């Protein structure tokens, strides 16, 4: 039975929303105009005038007024299988979301939310326009009631009966079946096995960009003064010092990643009921994502060498989501999941999965050439071209070594590409260092596309892209006959199947 409608009449959110909306405006201002604000802050005391201070004041007043208007004119309620959101003062807007179309209801708590004892609610409908339904602040009891009501409503209308345990966990905290919980040791492992080189690169790029702004703000004379004070070796580009700086940056990025992992994934628990997967995580900012098992589009398992060494893998269960939210809250994501947990999640998505019934296939050898060009030739060209090809003979062993290594890597990459067809879907895995496995049921497909250059087709190959509501998967370099046969098979399954993709 459906529980009584918790929101039969239009209600406003918690008044705390005013503060949160103002905070949001500030965040937006800082994010967009941080460089300008920095310049304002850093300018010499003599050049201060009241114009900019006035502008800041006007902005503050406007954002406060905006926050109040948005709070007072935003009301929502549930009526006739629809969630209704009314917003706007001068331009009124009424959004009606049919309950069946709701894909996810996620609850978030940032530090401020926790301070005021409220939760933010995001409702995603997988609309192509990406219309988001967001409530900035609701008391937790109401937020959970809304999440529960939407979830329960769907379950009841789907099953058509009130079977026992139809939604065993009506509260995210009450889910009985614990699939996985990240301990502190797991968090350290996850934090350590992220790609620190990438983080270091981003940090370096950020610092470089920042340095440029700073030089312009402070004036070249001041910078020159500082440059003279620093050891001369830096300005002359001493190699060992640059290496040290690189290592320090790497260590720093490792620390940053560890800290971020702790903040985002602290106390992560994944619980499984018959129809839902609930992921709860976060230290200061707590987030709860409730995902309906039937709506999961595919299972995406990724691992880095270090993560594999720790016996873990990162598992993502993306749902149908509006493009804007694809990488976001609609996805249940577990950054460090042990094999047993992976198996449980896979079984939840695909109970009939039987590895014994799968037939394995590979992809065409032509992929070796592409990967060799990508990993071997292009980076060399990128380094060599600015030097106008004047590479000293001393670097020749490095060039030869690099090329042979990339040939070896490309051959290995070709071997790792395996796609298995099963009675109801596909399992695709690839990757040498960073490995990825995608498990996809046939009926989740939306569109099938065969593509490639005319030279590729002439050589008898084609790429096959399978589009789902949560992204697409490309099987590269399939022999044309195989690609056509696979496309035919999948289309037959989609046309003859009766299961809904979402």
């Amino acid at each position, binding site marked *: 039975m459906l529980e009584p409608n918790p929101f039969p009449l239009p209600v406003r959110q918690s008044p705390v929303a005013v503060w949160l909306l103002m905070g949001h405006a500030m965040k937006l201002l800082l994010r967009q105009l941080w460089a300008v604000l920095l310049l304002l802050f850093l300018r010499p005391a003599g050049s201060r005038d009241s114009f900019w201070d006035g502008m800041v004041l006007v902005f503050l007043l406007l954002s406060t007024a905006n926050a109040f208007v948005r709070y007072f004119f935003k009301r929502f309620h549930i009526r006739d299988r629809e969630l209704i959101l009314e917003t706007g003062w001068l331009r009124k807007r009424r959004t009606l979301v049919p309950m069946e179309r709701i894909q996810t209801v996620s609850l978030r708590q940032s530090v401020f939310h926790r301070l005021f004892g409220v939760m933010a609610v995001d409702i995603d409908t997988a609309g192509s326009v990406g219309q988001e339904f967001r409530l900035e602040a609701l008391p937790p009891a109401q937020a959970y009631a809304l999440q529960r009501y939407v979830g329960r409503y769907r379950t009841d209308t789907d099953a058509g009966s009130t079977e026992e345990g139809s939604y065993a966990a009506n509260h995210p905290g009450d889910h009985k079946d614990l699939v996985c919980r990240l301990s502190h040791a797991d968090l350290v492992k996850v934090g350590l096995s992220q790609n620190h080189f990438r983080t270091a690169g981003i940090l370096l790029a950020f610092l470089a960009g920042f340095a440029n702004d700073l030089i312009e703000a402070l004036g070249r004379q001041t910078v020159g003064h500082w440059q003279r004070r620093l050891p001369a070796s830096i300005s002359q580009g001493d190699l060992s010092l640059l290496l040290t700086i690189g290592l320090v940056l790497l260590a720093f990025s490792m620390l940053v990643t560890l800290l971020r992992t702790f903040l985002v994934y602290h106390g992560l628990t994944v619980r499984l009921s018959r129809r839902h997967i609930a992921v709860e995580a976060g230290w200061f900012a707590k987030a709860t994502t409730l995902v309906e098992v039937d709506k999961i589009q595919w299972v995406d398992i990724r691992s880095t060498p270090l993560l594999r060494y720790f016996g873990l893998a990162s598992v993502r269960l993306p749902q149908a989501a509006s493009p804007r939210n694809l990488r976001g809250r609609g996805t249940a994501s577990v950054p460090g999941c042990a094999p047993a947990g992976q198996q449980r999640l896979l079984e939840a998505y695909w109970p009939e999965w039987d590895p014994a019934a799968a037939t394995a296939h590979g992809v065409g050898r032509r992929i070796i050439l592409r990967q060799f060009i990508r990993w071997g030739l292009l980076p060399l060209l990128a380094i060599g071209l600015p030097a106008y090809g004047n590479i000293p003979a001393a670097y020749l062993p490095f060039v030869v070594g690099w090329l042979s290594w990339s040939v070896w890597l490309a051959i290995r990459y070709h071997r790792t590409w395996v796609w298995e067809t099963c009675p109801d879907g596909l399992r695709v895995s690839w990757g040498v260092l960073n490995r990825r496995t995608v498990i996809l049921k046939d009926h989740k497909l939306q*569109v*099938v*596309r*065969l*593509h*490639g250059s005319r030279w590729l087709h002439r050589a008898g190959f084609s790429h096959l892209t399978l589009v789902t509501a949560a992204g697409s998967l490309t099987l590269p370099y399939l022999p044309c006959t195989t690609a056509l046969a696979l496309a035919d098979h999948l289309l037959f399954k989609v046309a003859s199947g009766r299961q809904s993709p979402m």
Partner: protein
Amino acid sequence: MTFLNEAVAPADLPQLASVPFHPLSTAWRKVELLSTTGWYVLMLLGAGVYLGANTLGWRWWMLLLLTWSAALSVSLWLAWKRWEKAGYALRTHDILYQEGVIFTSRTVVPYNRVQHCEVSRGPLERWTGLATLRIYTAGSTGGDLQVGGLPYMDALRIKEFVTAQAGTMPVASDSKGYSGTDAESHA
């Protein structure tokens, strides 16, 4: 435990390789050729105004004109080829569209995955009696199909057909979503 053992006749299986594609309207080819030429003429005029007729020697102007006409011929040839290669096909269970000269693609959208269709016409299309048909699915990236260069009435007819098919196909009409009991009922 679900047990499925449906018989399938091999002849009933759809075969992508043997689909006859309908070409797009010849009026569309005309539009493409004209608009390509129009852009090139605009570019040449722009270059003329920017450089000034007197600042360049006649040799440079000849070189510029030669390059311009070579690029124009290649673009016209590509536009012609694009029209030749593009085509659509309607089958019992899906709609197909193929396009591309250098990079070709063939997209298949099953009717039971169609969310909605729309027919749109720009000023040039209205003038030539053409229309563009867009078919939307829930697919995230590259999940939509766009067929330009259809005669307006054809586009409307195809839209009606696809919408009707999408409505009668089992899954799209089942707005409640998968109940999990459909498969069992066969057993």
